[in-house]
């Protein structure tokens, strides 16, 4: 024992700050969250345990279910669009022969992913504004479409959320798809060409089946993000669209930080945690991720 310490002591010492950090900011909050979710949490005074009351409150709150629906609609929409758009772009980029064009395009498409939601949201709030926004001005002057307040109309709010999210992240996922395509053995294309495959057929019968595992990775990574949507909604929401866009994370924020019902918010967080685990399990099963 002592000998181990002498030999590996320095290494353990190096690990100490990391372990302490994870204990205080990783594991402890999880346990604490579980505890608070069963408590009537107050700032001062005692905090009696009240069993499943907080969970009951959340469960019977129609706003919670509305938030869940919004999360699934916006998250699901972003998941589908955020999967298809980069896939199409990657396939399209792959058909370009000029490598400088390919690189420039990739570089430009990735930029929005680098920026915060406040910046991206702020930009789109202006681009979509009804009187001075570029989108409405262009539509009005070219196609004579009357201005629409996209961010204030409940019919548009979710669509805008999904489209802006796709716009922001497509460059990122595109890189993953392109990496998958580059890794395909060139002799497969050669064989397909000898068999007389057209360019479309090469994409259909060689490229797509060959990047299936990349697709699964991208899908799984994006699924994990579905329930996490927050910054985006926080920046782009407003009172008129709130019922259509307020997501689960916003619900917890509102309950815990704005209304200070910490116990209820903790219970909602625990439910989010369970949903996340379930969702991950389902996607893993569906894509048979472990077999890749």
């Amino acid at each position, binding site marked *: 024992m002592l000998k181990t310490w002498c030999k590996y002591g320095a290494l353990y010492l190096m690990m100490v700050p990391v372990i302490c950090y*994870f204990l205080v900011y990783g594991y402890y909050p999880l346990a604490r969250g579980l505890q608070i979710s069963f408590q009537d949490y107050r700032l001062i005074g005692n905090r009696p345990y009240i069993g499943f009351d907080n969970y009951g409150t959340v469960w019977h709150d129609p706003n919670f279910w509305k938030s869940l629906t919004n999360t699934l609609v916006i998250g699901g929409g972003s998941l589908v669009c955020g999967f298809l758009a980069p896939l199409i772009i990657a396939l399209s980029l792959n058909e370009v022969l000029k490598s400088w064009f390919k690189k420039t395009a990739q570089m430009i498409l990735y930029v929005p992913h680098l920026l915060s939601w406040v910046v991206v949201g702020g930009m789109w709030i202006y681009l979509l504004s009804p009187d001075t926004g570029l989108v409405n001005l262009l539509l009005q002057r070219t196609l004579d479409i009357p201005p629409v307040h996209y961010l204030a109309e409940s019919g548009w709010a979710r669509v805008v959320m999904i489209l802006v999210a796709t716009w922001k992240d497509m460059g990122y996922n595109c890189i993953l798809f392109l990496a998958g395509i580059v890794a395909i053995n060139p002799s497969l294309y050669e064989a397909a060409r000898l068999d007389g495959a057209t360019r479309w057929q090469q994409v259909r019968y060689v490229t797509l089946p060959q990047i299936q595992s990349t697709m699964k990775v991208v899908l799984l990574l994006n699924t994990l993000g579905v329930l996490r949507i927050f910054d985006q909604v926080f920046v782009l929401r407003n009172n008129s669209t709130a019922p259509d866009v307020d997501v689960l994370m916003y619900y917890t924020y509102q309950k815990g930080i704005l209304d200070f019902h910490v116990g209820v918010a903790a219970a909602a967080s625990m439910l989010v945690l369970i949903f996340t685990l379930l969702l991950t399990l389902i996607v893993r099963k569906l894509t048979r991720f472990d077999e890749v």
Partner: protein
Amino acid sequence: MGIERFERAGWGSRVFDAINLLFLLLLMLTMIIPFLNVISLSLSSGVASMQPDIILLPKDFSFEGYKIIWTSLDIWRPFVNSVTVTVTGTLLHVLLSSLAGYVLVHPYVPGKKLMITFILITMMIPQEAVLIPLYVVNKDLHLINTLSVLVLSGLVSGFSILLMRNFFLSIPYEIAESAKIDGAGEFWVFGAIYMRLATAGLATVTLFEFVRRWNMFTEPLVFINDSMKYTLQLALKSMIVDTSATSSTYMVTTNVKMAGIIIAILPLIAIYPFVQRFFMKGILLGASKE
């Protein structure tokens, strides 16, 4: 895939290429035009920026927006806060992740499996789900409304540790062994050999963390409500989005708001062309580790 793939490109193939190129160009325009619009608005005069007009070049060119946001709206304070938090946090993050990554490089350390499991589990806890308890923990530690809380959040991550470990693994372990035979301690081997040879890894992790911290929004929103401690993102949010709340004294014109957006983008865009390849590498390494 080289040119030979299309050596007998016929007429149909050329039409396909043209349409494909057009599609990509249009797509790039949807990225470029919004930025052009924002830059031009920020460089226009207040009056011009408020008029409904398609502005892709500065109209009535002036630096008015930048002047107002920097002097009258005191954006420098959130800016300095953001820089402080981002730089300190990133340096500590890289150091701690490297240390842990270095420990896990050793082929035999008693308890290594346990340490790896310990780290992997933290990666499965969604940060969002512990936001409320984190608030309570920070409150108990009296860290609410301090900049330290922002440095502490995400001080180290399993993702970065594994990324650093992978970069370290490409350094032959024999180098470390021979240095130790010559009497070097672990800290010396770590600092003088591993940290110097893993520049690409350090650059990748530094960049990712820098971008993450610079853009951090949820944490400051929840943990900070003293406007003196606001970060740039928070200040920007209250300026751009909650217009009704801040315009009590005077109206914030569009060019000022856009100048704010440019200030928040500038550090990222300035480094981006030089470090692009590290991003690509990091993204791919990150995805393959999940």
